[in-house]
């Protein structure tokens, strides 16, 4: 009995990119299968950064959770805290004064500016353009200073509180912020021109990682990734939460659909955010105290559930908070934009060369600490399996 059939497998190369890799700033593993230089398949492996924050929220009080939710992600801490705080406010039926809403918008837009500047700087670094990386990071520091003036800390703002914000600003701080925003606007315009014209950047980014609008909707991609492929999706425009119903702004979209378009969407949004910040500072209403007395906030939480969404720098972020009338929430569910953008992104690498993989990944603006979610591990048998959300919901694990 000899063999009747021989299966010949063509030579493919399996390259692990990550979890520790110079091109990645956070632990994520891309298993890249390459046929020569061409990528034929990519597996996205996650789970290196899971911290169990949702479970932690179920064991801490509603007010303590504001600070825990702010620490899901360092870069977008204000939007996380804002989304959670608004979910709790909907639950408790509290409406903060307009001044607090304007200050919230200001803090969130400052965060968007520095987040977009960061990812553009990292893109420059990954392309090997370290000079530009250093220059953008130098000017990003000005935005961090603006955030320090407004909130009291460079990165982790802890600015949101149920019923308002935790710090108010005076005329002196307002003028300083406006001055910083003017400088940053000038610099951002200059860097945007560099991204438009410099050969080092355009040759590596244009026509790399093209995502069609139909693929965006099929895989549920969000944020600047979707807007770079001419899909006009923006939770700020959709929900008009906080002061976005009064602040005028445009949703930036581009038609090029490639990595370059996604980076340019970020630069244009940076300029748009600076305009929003200036508008908020110049039209700051004074209708009531923006800072609530935290000692007099209600301590009773009615049973019920609420849902809030916010446009984080990376896309739409949603929080679901469920209360059963106790001091602690029954459930806090977080759905971050990177969860959609990175886990579903493996189709977009296929057909490009290995050197393009970090470029395409960076153009998604991955935030790994945001996206780490449930993996089921059977500890008795040591088996690891993936389950669908439907199975998880039905308890079939």
């Amino acid at each position: 009995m000899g063999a009747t059939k021989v299966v010949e497998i063509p030579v493919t190369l399996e390259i692990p990119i990550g979890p520790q890799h110079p091109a990645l700033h956070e632990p994520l593993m891309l298993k890249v299968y390459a046929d020569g230089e061409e990528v034929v398949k990519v597996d996205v492996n996650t789970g290196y950064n899971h911290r169990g924050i949702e479970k932690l929220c179920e064991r801490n009080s509603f007010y303590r959770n504001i600070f825990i939710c702010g620490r899901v992600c360092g870069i977008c801490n204000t939007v996380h805290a804002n989304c959670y705080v608004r979910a709790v406010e909907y639950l408790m039926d509290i409406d903060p004064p307009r001044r607090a809403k304007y200050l919230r918008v200001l803090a969130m837009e400052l965060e968007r500016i520095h987040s977009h500047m960061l990812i553009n700087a990292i893109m420059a670094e990954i392309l090997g353009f370290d000079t530009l990386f250093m220059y953008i990071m130098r000017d990003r520091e000005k935005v961090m200073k603006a955030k320090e003036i407004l909130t009291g800390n460079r990165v982790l703002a802890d600015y949101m509180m149920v019923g308002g914000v935790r710090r108010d600003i005076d005329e002196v701080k307002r003028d300083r912020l406006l001055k910083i925003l003017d400088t940053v606007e000038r610099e951002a315009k200059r860097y945007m021109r560099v991204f438009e014209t410099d050969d080092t950047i355009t040759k590596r980014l244009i026509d790399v990682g093209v995502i069609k609008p139909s693929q965006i909707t099929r895989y549920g991609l969000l944020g600047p990734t979707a807007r770079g492929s001419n899909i006009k999706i923006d939770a700020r425009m959709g929900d008009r939460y906080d002061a976005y119903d009064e602040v005028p702004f445009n949703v930036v979209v581009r038609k090029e659909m490639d990595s370059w378009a996604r980076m340019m969407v970020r630069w244009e949004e940076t300029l748009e955010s600076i305009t929003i910040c200036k508008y908020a500072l110049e039209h700051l209403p004074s209708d009531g105290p923006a800072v609530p007395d935290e000692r007099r906030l209600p301590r009773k939480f009615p049973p019920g559930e609420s849902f809030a969404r916010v446009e984080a720098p990376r896309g739409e972020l949603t929080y679901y908070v469920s209360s059963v009338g106790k001091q602690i929430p029954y459930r806090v569910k977080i759905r971050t934009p990177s969860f959609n953008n990175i886990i579903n992104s493996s189709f977009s690498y296929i057909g490009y060369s290995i050197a393009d993989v970090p470029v395409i990944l960076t153009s998604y603006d991955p935030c790994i600490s945001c996206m780490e979610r449930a993996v089921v591990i059977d500890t008795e048998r040591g088996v690891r399996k993936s389950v669908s959300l439907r199975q998880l919901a039905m308890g079939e694990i």
Partner: protein
Amino acid sequence: MGGPAILKEVLQRFFSKPVTIQYPFEHVEVEKDLRGRHYTDLNKCIGCGLCALECPADAIKMEKLPEDKKPKRNPRGLYPVIDYGLCVFCYRCVTVCPVNAFIVTNYYHLASPKKPDSRDLTLKTLSGEGGGGM
């Protein structure tokens, strides 16, 4: 499509002062109201323990006051000790304190060979020596 667009700036930067701050040899200028090291003023603290309950990082522990320290308004004889290694500097304790007993500073040089906490700073406040930090 053009050439290296930032070449002019690169050449200019050869002759300007470096932007990098050589910490710890030079210090970063921070805002006056930066959330830095904070500790309790024992003259005001009533030992209620609300700060320890509300701390999201569980960095505050209520401890017994030493025998020789007898503040006027502290019936339980407890005072909060902040572990700066655990503290996330959200200042929730400062804002929930019913008697505004916290002294706030913008001091941020907290690297130390021993475990940094607020015990010494807090105990100094009672004898009128005042806490360091600024």
